[in-house]
């Protein structure tokens, strides 16, 4: 004859499994899989460096896919063999002004000049900013950013509170390309910023193909220089390193036509929600606010 004890009684009453479950340590919930569309949607975005080399409508369509509210655009002459006369840079800026008119509220125009033509360049800055552009960009390889030819341009932009975004290139140790002597390296930005610390100077695209460790370490010593995160390079750790060298407040979200990776590299970085928000939106918006061009 079987002996009835407390355990067998409870088991026959169907209670033991419940108690067993009560005793067990709850299994940890698996971490939810990263939700890419939700992450894209989570942040307001201002693209601080882009172009309309192609149809501006395509840029707007691409920005819509990534939920980018406004896109800073310019049309620089990137062929170093081409002479960039005042007629040439005025025509580039006319394209930007037309795009701003055709897509109201979507484009932030950046005025492109060649400082070699000083009087025309300064007049063009007035024309473009009076017409609603937000600053200068993408200043290209015609003249190095620390060249004295830029000094009057700096003086004017400081007075106008206008940001100056310039193509950063040749980011490799001890390297200059003799065929493009006007390319601005990170150390050229540092020199310019030390001379004009009041200027809002933006190093164009730390992911633009150069050695981003070289660029970020160089720029550390010029605390007034901002850097945009654009470019085709999406190296793992690049944004984290830029934050380590420059701080969150000096970084500006941008794509430079690399829309998916422009957003993806910031989503991948080890940042807090607030830090990501600053880079995607707030930092550039604060620059825009100085001339009341900010987004609301």
């Amino acid at each position: 004859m079987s002996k009835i004890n407390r355990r067998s009684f409870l088991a026959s009453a169907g209670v033991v499994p419940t108690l067993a479950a009560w005793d067990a340590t709850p299994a940890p919930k698996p971490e939810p899989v990263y939700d890419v569309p939700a992450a894209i949607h989570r942040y307001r975005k201002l693209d601080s460096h882009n172009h309309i080399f192609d149809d501006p409508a395509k840029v707007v369509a691409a920005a819509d896919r990534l939920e980018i509210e406004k896109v800073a655009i310019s049309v620089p002459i990137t062929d170093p063999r081409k002479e960039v006369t005042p007629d040439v840079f005025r025509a580039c800026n006319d394209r930007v002004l037309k795009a701003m008119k055709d897509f109201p509220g979507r484009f932030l125009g950046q005025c492109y000049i060649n400082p070699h033509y000083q009087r025309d360049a300064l007049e063009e800055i007035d024309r473009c900013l009076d017409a609603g552009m937000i600053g200068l960009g993408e200043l290209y390889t015609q003249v190095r950013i620390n060249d004295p030819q830029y000094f009057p341009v700096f003086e004017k932009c400081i007075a106008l509170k206008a940001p100056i975004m310039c193509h950063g290139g040749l980011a490799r140790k001890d390297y200059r390309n003799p065929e493009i002597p006007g390319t601005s390296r990170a150390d050229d930005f540092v020199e310019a910023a030390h001379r004009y610390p009041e200027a809002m100077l933006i190093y164009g695209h730390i992911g633009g193909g150069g050695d981003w460790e070289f660029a970020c370490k160089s720029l550390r010593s010029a605390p007034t220089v901002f850097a945009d995160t654009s470019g085709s390079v999406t190296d793992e750790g690049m944004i984290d390193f830029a934050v380590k060298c420059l701080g969150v407040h000096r970084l500006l979200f941008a794509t430079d036509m690399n829309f998916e990776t422009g957003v993806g590299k910031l989503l991948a970085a080890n940042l807090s929600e607030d830090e990501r928000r600053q880079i995607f939106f707030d930092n550039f918006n604060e620059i825009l606010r100085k001339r009341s061009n900010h987004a609301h």
Partner: protein
Amino acid sequence: MRIDFHTYIGHWPFRQLRGNTPAGLIDYMRRFGIDQAVVSNLNGVFYKNTQPANEELAEAIKAFPGRFIPYAVINPTYPDWEYDLEVCHTKLGMRGLRIYPQYHDYKLTDPRLAKLLELARGASLPVAFSRWLVDDRQHSWMDIGGQLTLDDLVPVMKDNPGTFVLLNTTMAPLKDEHLAALRNVDVYFDTVYATACLPHASGYDVRRLVEVFGAGRFLFGSGYPFRDPVSALVRLEIVKEFDHSMMDAIWSGNALRLLAHTPRQAGR
């Protein structure tokens, strides 16, 4: 299901990599919902004799059964590579090959490469070319660098029957003659440089190429841990033009079909 066809373990001598171990990859896969990853060992790019890199890989992934699909690094200009290839295939469970002519110092016209492609075809092993490992513009002063272009690669694939995978392919410049030739080649493209936004110098319009080749040629790839893990996902997540079956094919269906042709020979 998601299969990442382009990952690495191992070291890159010129920059610190994070997540470059099987455990690091598993962490990436867990966070981003990746079920399996095709992986090779970067150390094989730099070892003169690549076989220890393949042995390291086989040993390292043992702790994670079913999660990794190993690809061997073979240098067809180094002695006894045929034996290494056989060992990789029959004993180490390798399911394909990755080759690096730039770093292993041979031309794509080298007859020893033709021999490798012939043996790979006989063993039903796909051969993966990587157009580059790092952007030339940022290469170290100690790095050879160099890129493979479609002008280099297309004749090789055209003249040597087999199955190929192009990793890090920017498809630029993509000429009509390339398109015509690639239609007749059993070649797959990873999505590291795919874009559904603005095609530019370092990206290819995945919508256009799917129109040309069909969705059956594309494999989801991240390039992790070289490249950040989210950009690769964003590239596909924002493509609105593809239906579910096309997306399923790119996320995993094409990879599964490709892997079905190269059954695992060892370590069952």
